[in-house]
C-alpha cells in the first residue's frame, strides 16, 4: 500500500516487480500511466507545470486508495503522482492495482484515476506559444467521478 508524490520519474516495470514479488495471491496487475500531451485544444504545448498542496495531496490520495480497497478485493495499490515541470511525453501519474483476478484490478484502476482527477489537490499549468495557461477542470472528468457514487463494487472471484 503506497502513495507517493514526487518530482522524479518512475520505472513502471520496477514498481510492478516490487509490488508482486513474493505475493502468490496476486493473479492480476493493472497499470495505468498518464502522459503529458504535446497539444491541448489543437494548439501545441511545450510543457506543463504541476502544482500541488504538500501533505494534503498525500492524504487525499491515501483516502482515495482506502475507498478503492473498501470497494474491491485488492491485494495491493500503488499511486505515484509527479509534480513540478514536465515536458510532452513525460509520465505524470502511475496507478497500479493488484488483485487475485482481473476484474477488480481493472475496475479499481479506473476508479482511482477518475477520483484523483477531481479530488486530489493538483493544478496543471500548460506552457503555450502565447504564455502559461491554467488547465480548466473538465465536465467530463467530474461526470466520470460522479458515476461511481452510486455504483456498487464489482469484481470478486472467478473472473
Amino acid at each position, binding site marked *: 500500500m503506497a502513495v507517493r508524490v514526487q518530482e522524479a520519474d518512475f520505472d513502471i516495470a520496477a514498481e510492478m516487480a516490487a509490488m508482486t514479488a513474493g505475493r502468490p495471491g496476486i493473479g492480476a496487475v493493472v497499470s495505468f500511466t*498518464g502522459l503529458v500531451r504535446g497539444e491541448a485544444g489543437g494548439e501545441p504545448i511545450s510543457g506543463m507545470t*504541476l*502544482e*500541488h*498542496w504538500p*501533505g*494534503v495531496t498525500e*492524504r487525499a490520495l491515501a483516502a482515495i486508495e482506502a475507498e478503492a480497497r473498501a470497494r474491491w478485493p485488492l491485494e495491493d495499490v500503488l499511486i505515484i*503522482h509527479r509534480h513540478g515541470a514536465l515536458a510532452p511525453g513525460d509520465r*505524470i*501519474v502511475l496507478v497500479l492495482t493488484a488483485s487475485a483476478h482481473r476484474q477488480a484490478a481493472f475496475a479499481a484502476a479506473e476508479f482511482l*484515476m477518475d477520483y*484523483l*482527477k*477531481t*479530488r*486530489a*489537490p*493538483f*493544478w*496543471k*499549468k500548460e506552457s503555450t506559444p502565447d504564455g502559461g495557461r*491554467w*488547465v*480548466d*477542470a*473538465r465536465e467530463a*472528468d467530474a461526470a466520470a467521478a460522479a458515476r461511481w457514487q452510486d455504483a456498487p463494487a464489482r469484481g470478486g472471484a472467478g473472473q
Partner: protein
Amino acid sequence: MKLVYFAWVRERIGTASEEVSTGARTVAELVEDLRRRSPGHALAFADISALRVAVDEEVSDFSAPIEGAREVAFFPPMTGG
C-alpha cells in the same frame, strides 16, 4: 488566520499565503473582506463559482463557519491525473 492560495488564485493575489485578522463568521463573509484588500484580491475573488475552498485542510463550502479556524485555502477546481 492563515490564508493559502493555489494556482491562478495565488498568481492573481501575488502571494502563496498571508495572515489576516477578520471578523468574518463564514467563508463568504471572509471573501467579502478579502475582495477589498487589493485589486489582485478583487480579481481572484470576482467569481466564486470558479473557486473551491478548504477550511483547516478539509474541502468545504462558502457558507461554512470559520470561527476558530486556523487556515482557509482558496483554489480552482483540481486538475490532477
